[in-house]
């Protein structure tokens, strides 16, 4: 008898039949009926109509039947909330059952009934079960708290279940501990700011004890939790490492990788001179190698992590090159990852082996893999100088195979080798030229043309070769056209006599017959250079080229350090910090490696992570620091090709060419689209400035009291730089939403359409939250105002200066780039008010070297006015006091990425004799600013106003302000923002 009978198709009246059977008097028939119902449910049929009948079967002694009914309940309770109430009594009763299995089953099931109305009834039984004498019930109840939290977080907090859960970390049973940790970790993920898993040496000890005795899954949770701990010194770090290393021999690969994470992180704190450090390095290699003999899916995740590990600590696997050799029946995703690691491990010692392998791979059938193998040979040549010659000869061998895509790929990499080692391998040019006709891919054609142009003097028939490309000039891709233009100009400069005709031909093709502005511009530049000053032309065109760098694909060190903290997670698979892709990325707390504590540390370790606050708390503002050219320049060449393919929300990743069409559909799929109509009207009556400097122009512009200060619009992109398109704009923050208010003016003679906008990665992840909506074509001399809503969930890269934003705007004519500075106060969030205790603690906690002091000159405001002005821009006064005649405001603000900035603002009536106040004279935590008098007296003259200490709101409103300087002291874990916060202060206070 099998269950397949349950799969027979839904006959008419089947539900009716089941109903009758469920209500049958015969136990056996009832059970059979429930089984049929479950089977239908499993295959996705809707059997919710049977709810009352199934619930009626719940009161039974038959455990199987009870379980089946519970299964049914979990599935349908949500759709039948009123009916689900019927089940409550049974749950409450079952939670008292003498059999712990039934108690556990009841507490487990009731947590799965996601009905708000019911949850309240379940609190009491749950409370009992959390304190149950049987650990099996307790551990089940621990998970139930997580379930309940998912349904109604407030209820869980109000009922004190979180505290009970924290207590379970000290439970005597390791399984209970593990489940409590797992439940807390899951709850903590939805509340990143809460301090649920507050780890201290005692709790760490308990976790380490439980680690040895709990199940493999529990070990994963505990290890991941341990990884968030910050040992107080290298000794503690070592002792934790010693207790974690046995996990490396576990059969479960997830346990192994979590243990590797803990070790990699804490190792950071150990001195390299310690014997133990060396031992640990040796111990890490075998388990990583073992992961590679597991199933391919496990291998893939392991390889992505190993890729990080070999970048951070190449010494661990430097002798294990062979295990990364590709087996021909590995899945493609494993092959590509292995190849990547092989190159990272390539060194003079093993290069011969690696090359032999790569050559072998280049003869395989999978085109993608073969291409990557050929590229890898090129990368080896650039990485290991001694091997360059061998690499070149290997590439030549491959070119002899005449396999089309192999040849093309080889030529592309040979071009790079030429650039890296000039005047060394040019003898192979002849061979390359033989393959000219077979090249059909733009990249390969461009590479070949570059080679011919660069070495024109050594190639007898260079002119013929280049001429042959000219015939189909207009059918070539832009890349090839540009390269061809340059190459012919180079040729002309080298052999002017024979090639005059050719160069004229190409210049006229580029300037007169082409629609491509880049090509035209380049053509004109060359033309003028050649016609006005050939010597200068020679200097420009044939200039020495900078050498190309050795490794272009290494992960940037601060990002790498952060990713090491995420070993074993999805972040490690994507090589992106969670903030870049986890939903609602704002909540994510950045992690960083602990600082090395041992004093013996030699100076040669710049990779040591940022010092300062403990990991897990430190909001490291800006994780990435990539090349500043960034993605903008790639805009018209398609998305950047580094990293694995990512198809998640494109706006967040920034890896998709937004300007390349399909814009609407891409953005439409994400969840933070603000409809353009909801945007705040731009401009608020501020006059239009002229020039970037106006952004901070303190004399013009009218601030607004409702919402943050809005600077007047400034011209960001003058018409002459953008073929007639003039863009001016400013940034606003209103009720929590940031927008970029733009004014587009068409100063050209033709109509402009098809506008689109994209930002380069920037320090705070600003990104358009909706497409740029220009509804009608923009006719000449027409101006349109648009408010573009912005989000802060884009990808992040540190910019210089911090508030720099590079923008690309596209229209039917071309793509234009400009950059602008945004005032930091648009990033101050509405919930930036810290409570006093917290303020006090945080202020003390932030090291003094992070403190920055500034003066705001000539600011005629009293404390009250300043406070309210600042508050409208989300700078909140936490407390206020008067010290020796000076008003002190203690203020807090929070940036969109969760960074807190604490401020102390000192306001004093002007007193010319007063100079800088030494901060150590200030009462304990009151550091700060002194009012430096001076400046002009304006208004009503100075006065000393006294206020009762701390927090009183009585203001000296009658004593009105004088012209005075304010002194501002800022503390932040990310000191680099201070300068910009100060500018924001100044802007807000003076407008």
């Amino acid at each position, binding site marked *: *008898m*099998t*269950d*397949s009978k*349950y*799969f027979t198709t839904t006959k008419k009246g089947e539900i009716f039949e089941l109903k009758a059977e469920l209500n049958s008097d015969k136990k056996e028939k009832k059970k059979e009926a429930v089984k049929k119902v*479950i*089977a239908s449910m499993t*295959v*996705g049929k809707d059997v919710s109509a049977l709810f009352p009948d199934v619930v009626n079967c719940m009161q039974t002694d*038959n*455990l*199987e*039947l009870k*379980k089946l009914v519970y299964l049914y309940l979990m599935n349908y309770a949500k759709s039948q909330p009123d009916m689900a109430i019927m089940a409550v009594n049974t749950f409450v009763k079952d939670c008292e059952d003498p059999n712990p*299995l039934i108690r556990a089953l009841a507490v487990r099931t009731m947590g*799965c009934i996601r009905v708000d109305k019911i949850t309240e009834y379940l609190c009491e039984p749950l409370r009992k079960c959390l304190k149950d004498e*049987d650990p*099996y019930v307790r551990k089940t109840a621990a*998970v139930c708290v*997580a*379930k309940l939290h998912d349904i109604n977080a407030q209820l869980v907090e109000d009922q004190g279940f979180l505290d009970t859960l924290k207590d379970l970390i000290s439970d005597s*049973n390791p*399984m209970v501990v593990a489940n409590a940790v*797992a439940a807390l970790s899951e709850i903590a*993920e939805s509340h990143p700011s809460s301090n649920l898993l507050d780890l201290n040496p005692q709790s760490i000890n308990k976790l380490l004890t439980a680690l040895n*005795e709990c*199940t493999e*899954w529990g070990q994963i949770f505990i290890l991941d939790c341990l990884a968030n701990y910050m040992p107080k010194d290298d000794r503690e770090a070592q002792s934790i490492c010693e207790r974690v290393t*046995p996990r490396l*021999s576990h*059969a*479960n690969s*997830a346990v192994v990788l*979590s243990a590797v994470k803990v070790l990699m992180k804490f190792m950071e704190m150990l001195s390299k001179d310690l014997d133990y450090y060396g031992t640990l390095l040796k111990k890490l290699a075998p*388990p990583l*190698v*073992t992961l590679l*003999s597991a*199933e*391919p*899916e*496990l291998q*893939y*995740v392991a390889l992505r992590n190993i890729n990080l590990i070999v970048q951070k600590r190449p010494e661990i696997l430097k002798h294990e090159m*062979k*295990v990364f050799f590709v087996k*021909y029946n590995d899945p*493609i*995703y494993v092959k590509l990852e292995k190849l990547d690691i092989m190159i990272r491990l390539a060194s003079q010692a093993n290069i011969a*082996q690696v090359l032999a*392998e790569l050559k072998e791979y280049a003869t395989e*059938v999978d085109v993608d893999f073969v291409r990557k193998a050929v590229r890898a040979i090129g990368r080896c040549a650039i990485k290991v100088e001694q091997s360059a010659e061998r690499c070149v000869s290997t590439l030549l061998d491959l070119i002899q195979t005449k396999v089309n895509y192999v040849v093309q790929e080889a030529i592309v990499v040979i071009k790079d080798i030429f650039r890296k080692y000039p005047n060394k391998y040019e003898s192979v040019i002849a061979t390359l030229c033989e393959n000219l006709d077979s090249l059909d891919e733009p990249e390969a054609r461009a590479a070949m043309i570059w080679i011919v142009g660069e070495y024109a003097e050594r190639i007898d028939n260079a002119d013929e070769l280049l001429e042959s490309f000219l015939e189909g000039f207009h059918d070539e891709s832009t890349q090839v056209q540009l390269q061809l233009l340059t190459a012919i100009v180079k040729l002309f400069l080298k052999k002017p006599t024979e090639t005059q005709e050719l160069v004229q031909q190409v210049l006229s093709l580029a300037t007169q017959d082409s629609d491509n502005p880049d090509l035209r511009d380049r053509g004109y530049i060359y033309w003028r250079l050649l016609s006005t000053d050939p010597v200068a032309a020679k200097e420009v065109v044939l200039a020495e080229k900078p050498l190309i760098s050795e490794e272009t694909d290494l992960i940037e060190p601060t990002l790498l350090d952060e990713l090491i903290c995420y070993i074993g997670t999805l972040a490690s*698979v*994507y090589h992106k910090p*969670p903030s870049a892709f*986890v939903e609602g990325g704002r909540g994510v707390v950045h992690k960083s490696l602990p600082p090395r504590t041992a004093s013996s540390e030699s100076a040669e370790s710049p990779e040591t992570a940022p010092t300062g606050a403990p990991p897990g708390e430190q909001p490291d503002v800006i994780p990435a620091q990539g090349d500043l050219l960034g993605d903008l320049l790639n805009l018209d060449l398609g998305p950047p090709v580094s990293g694995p393919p*990512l*198809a998640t929300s494109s706006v967040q990743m920034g890896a998709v060419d937004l300007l390349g069409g399909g814009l609407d559909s891409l953005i439409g799929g*994400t969840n933070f689209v603000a409809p353009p109509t909801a945007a705040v009207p731009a401009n608020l009556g501020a006059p239009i400035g002229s020039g970037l400097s106006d952004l901070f122009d303190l004399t013009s512009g009218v601030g607004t009291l409702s919402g943050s200060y809005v600077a007047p619009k400034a011209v960001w992109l003058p018409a002459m730089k953008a073929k007639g398109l003039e863009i001016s704009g400013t940034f606003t923050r209103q009720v929590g939403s940031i927008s970029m208010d733009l004014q587009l003016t068409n100063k050209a003679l033709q109509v402009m359409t098809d506008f689109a906008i994209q930002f380069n990665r920037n320090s705070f992840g600003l990104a358009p939250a909706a497409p740029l909506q220009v509804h009608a074509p923009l006719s000449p001399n027409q101006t349109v105002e648009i408010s573009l809503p912005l989000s802060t969930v884009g990808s992040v890269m540190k910019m210089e200066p911090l508030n720099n934003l590079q923008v690309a705007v596209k229209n039917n004519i071309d793509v234009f780039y400009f950059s602008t500075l945004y005032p930091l106060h648009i990033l101050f969030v509405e919930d930036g008010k810290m409570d006093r205790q917290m303020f006090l603690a945080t202020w003390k906690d932030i090291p003094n070297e992070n403190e920055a002091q500034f003066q705001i000159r000539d600011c005629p405001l009293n404390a009250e006015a300043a406070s309210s002005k600042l508050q409208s821009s989300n700078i909140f006064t936490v407390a206020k006091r008067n010290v020796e005649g000076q008003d002190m405001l203690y203020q807090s603000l929070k940036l969109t990425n969760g960074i807190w900035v604490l401020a102390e603002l000192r306001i004093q009536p002007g007193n010319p004799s007063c100079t800088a106040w030494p901060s150590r004279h200030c009462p304990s935590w009151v550091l700060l600013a002194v009012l430096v008098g001076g400046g002009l007296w304006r208004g009503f003259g100075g006065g000393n106003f006294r206020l009762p200490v701390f927090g009183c709101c009585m203001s000296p409103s009658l004593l009105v302000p004088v012209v005075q300087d304010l002194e501002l002291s800022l503390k932040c874990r990310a000191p680099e923002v201070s300068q910009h916060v100060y500018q924001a202060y100044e802007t807000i206070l003076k407008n």
Partner: protein
Amino acid sequence: MIHSLFLINSSGDIFLEKHWKSVVSRSVCDYFFEAQERATEAENVPPVIPTPHHYLLSVYRHKIFFVAVIQTEVPPLFVIEFLHRVVDTFQDYFGVCSEPVIKDNVVVVYEVLEEMLDNGFPLATESNILKELIKPPTILRTVVNTITGSTNVGDQLPTGQLSVVPWRRTGVKYTNNEAYFDVIEEIDAIIDKSGSTITAEIQGVIDACVKLTGMPDLTLSFMNPRLLDDVSFHPCVRFKRWESERILSFIPPDGNFRLLSYHMLSWDVGKINPQKLPSLKGTMSLQAGASKPDENPTINLQFKIQQLAISGLKVNRLDMYGEKYKPFKGIKYMTKAGKFQVRT
């Protein structure tokens, strides 16, 4: 944690879905189908696929895709390990893991999955425990159940789950007490055109079949334990004892299990005369009418050598403590080709 599981056959039908939290629409699998289409071959479907709101982690075994849906940051290896465990459990329960078998036993499958995870947290993944909770279907039991009306769901608390040996159930009884160990070594190697070895490694395992009454405490020692330096143990093995004495000491699970696996990159082959290196030659001939292979096909070799562990690993002795009876003991060695590839 793990939100949902979809089982998908190679023609792209979802034939089973299980949700441990709220229900995730099966349309989420569309992203998987897209990836499947791009991958051309089933083996090449990437194991981690992002979608706008979820991540899909999949394994492909027995021509079935096991696709797990997760919503928050969960260690992917944890999910993939769990999926493999699901496959192993099905195999253990039903003998084979295939679409028809799963469909035939859908209620048991559903009950087992329900026991394996609670709210996405692993609950009972040891097949010893699971079998106590939900009895695997056998013909006899099915007949008995039909006649007596009893069920395949146990009504006992799974006792092992709370002891310090969660992998073993209590009250085990056998009339014949026996403990068998198989040392199986697989050689993974790549041999190049000229016949020289590019890589060669041994993946070894010791699989056990232990049917012993009560709570036996076993120790297994080796003649040459120093051969083992890269090992992964079943959780039952006492790691400290291994570290200090190089002896495997453990209370075994009941039935079949993998005691340890190990990995060797180089090993001792004994004395070989350099003048007369041993060599094995073979020729490959195609059947008449067979299509010509690619230019340089890679050949996969299969072979087995009975009663030999190529690494030279030898078990010294097995002792049992804690119980009075005398068990039958047996040890078998075998060497076979793993991924043994010869390039031509």
